[in-house]
């Protein structure tokens, strides 16, 4: 609640009376409201804010140790004690390290990107550089982090609610354009990580997560009610395998956002979970049967009363279907295109109304804030999104035919942002080559 209050520009320590969760459940004993009525009365009459506002550039912290090793340990202990860590070792964001990160942008360090909801922490380019420094990043990663933060702060995302909600949706950043290979973002085997050959996605996603927690206030059980948390240490940052797109298949960023092929861009979706789909068949089968059976299995996984899809019913997405390059090639050879695949998956993931009813789903549709979503209750079978184009389809993953991957979404929108590079970007890439060795991609 403090986040919600500070997020609208009020001092965060608003007058509140808090109770254990049990009182908020159906059939609960609400006599504690009567017993603690004086706290409500005091809130209306006597409460005063004790918040003092800080201003200017980010304040500095300091630790001391007999050696660098000891100081580093103490810095990590302090970051955890202040609830700014994630349980993994952090690089303290020293002036030197942050200045190094800032080489990745031509924007001024004080350039305001917005306020990170729900807490409303002021988010500048410097704030991003601090998070990236802590996450073990490099300056050439900063342009993608800035674009991802801009995407998160787009009003269409409803990010304040996504940050706080119990479903725990997490950002998925799909990168298109040559920058993916240049800075070592994975599009192939193990693209959701970890991968020491392609370390960029982990650092960028971890920095975004640190911003969500430290600046946005999404601290588990306090600022975010994400019940399970969904393995969000690094969120998900990967690239589409554009080199493997079959002839005539367009990159995701071109289809969804209209960016010219070759444009460096990010596309932001919020996922609430992932499902591996064993797509490949066994025993004797024709290429047609392999593709068709696999598609049915994907649609079967999508045909679930996952009510998180309601958030993106009209303008967002029910999820991201990842198809490996080998499978995309097989499909294309049989005449499938991305639009045809989306049409098939949309048509065959519709849920019969009787199944929705037995799961109690219509009540959620009826109370949805979007009239178009509410209207959809008249459809039987019920499509999981307004139209096929809402489904995000990307060619990515290892060159292997067995599986597809479905990232189910809780995503009111799919936001695209171009990535802005500094003029010195080539120098940063050359330095990365020296530091990390030859790029294996």
């Amino acid at each position: 609640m403090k986040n919600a209050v500070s997020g609208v520009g009020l001092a965060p320590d608003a007058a509140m009376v808090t109770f254990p969760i049990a009182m908020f459940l159906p059939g609960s004993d609400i006599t504690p409201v009567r017993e603690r009525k004086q706290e409500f009365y005091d809130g209306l009459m006597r409460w005063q804010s004790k918040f003092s506002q800080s201003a200017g550039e980010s304040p500095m912290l300091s630790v001391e140790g007999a050696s660098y090793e000891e100081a580093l340990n103490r810095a990590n202990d302090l970051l955890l004690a202040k609830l700014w860590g994630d349980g993994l070792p952090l690089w303290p964001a020293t002036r030197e390290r942050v200045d190094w990160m800032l080489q990745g942008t031509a924007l001024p360090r004080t350039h305001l990107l917005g306020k990170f909801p729900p807490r409303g922490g002021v988010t500048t380019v410097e704030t991003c550089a601090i998070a990236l420094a802590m996450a073990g990043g490099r300056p050439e990663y900063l342009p993608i982090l800035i674009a991802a933060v801009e995407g998160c702060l787009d009003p269409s995302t409803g990010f304040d609610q996504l940050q706080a909600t119990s479903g725990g949706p997490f950002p998925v950043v799909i990168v298109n354009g040559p920058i993916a290979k240049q800075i070592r973002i994975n599009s192939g085997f193990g693209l959701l990580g970890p991968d020491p050959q392609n370390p960029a996605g982990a650092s960028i996603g971890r920095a975004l997560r640190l911003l969500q927690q430290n600046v946005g206030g999404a601290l588990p059980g306090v600022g975010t009610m994400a019940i399970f948390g969904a393995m969000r240490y690094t969120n998900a940052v990967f690239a589409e395998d554009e080199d493997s797109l079959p002839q005539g298949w367009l990159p995701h960023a071109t289809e969804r956002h209209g960016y010219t092929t070759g444009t460096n861009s990010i596309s932001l979706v919020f996922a609430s979970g992932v499902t591996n789909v064993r797509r490949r068949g066994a025993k004797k089968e024709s290429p047609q049967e392999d593709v068709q059976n696999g598609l049915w299995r994907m649609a079967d996984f999508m045909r679930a009363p996952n009510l998180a899809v309601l958030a993106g019913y009209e303008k967002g997405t029910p999820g991201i279907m990842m198809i490996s390059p080998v499978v995309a090639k097989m499909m294309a050879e049989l005449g499938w295109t991305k639009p045809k695949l989306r049409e098939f998956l949309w048509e065959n993931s519709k849920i019969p109304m009787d199944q929705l009813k037995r799961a109690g789903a219509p009540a959620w549709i009826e109370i949805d804030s979007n009239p178009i979503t509410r209207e959809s209750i008249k459809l039987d079978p019920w499509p999981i999104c307004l139209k096929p184009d809402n489904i995000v389809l990307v060619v990515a993953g290892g060159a292997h035919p067995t599986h597809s991957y479905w990232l189910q979404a809780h995503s009111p929108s799919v936001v695209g942002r171009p990535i802005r590079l500094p003029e010195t970007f080539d120098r940063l890439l050359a330095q990365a080559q020296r530091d990390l060795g030859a790029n294996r991609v």
Partner: protein
Amino acid sequence: MKLEFYDPSGALEVTQPHAPRLSSLERKRIGIVSNEQWQAYRMLPLLKSLLETDFPGTEVLPVDAYPQGNALIGTEETAALVKKSGVDAVIVGNAA
């Protein structure tokens, strides 16, 4: 060995003050803004009756005096309705 590093939490900017507190709760008019969740339909009416019992002459508007639900309570339209109703204070609930 001293290690200096940035506070990563980002500044908070207070752009508007909280409403002034009341000197007493007697003979006041109080509004309730409800998101209609987390047993608000039971707790907020209980709070209304407690206030009206403990502070004679105080009127607490019914929970449905303003639009309810998360999608509506934060809107400018609801804020205008609250202002128009001429209440001295507002209680907002429930969050979990």
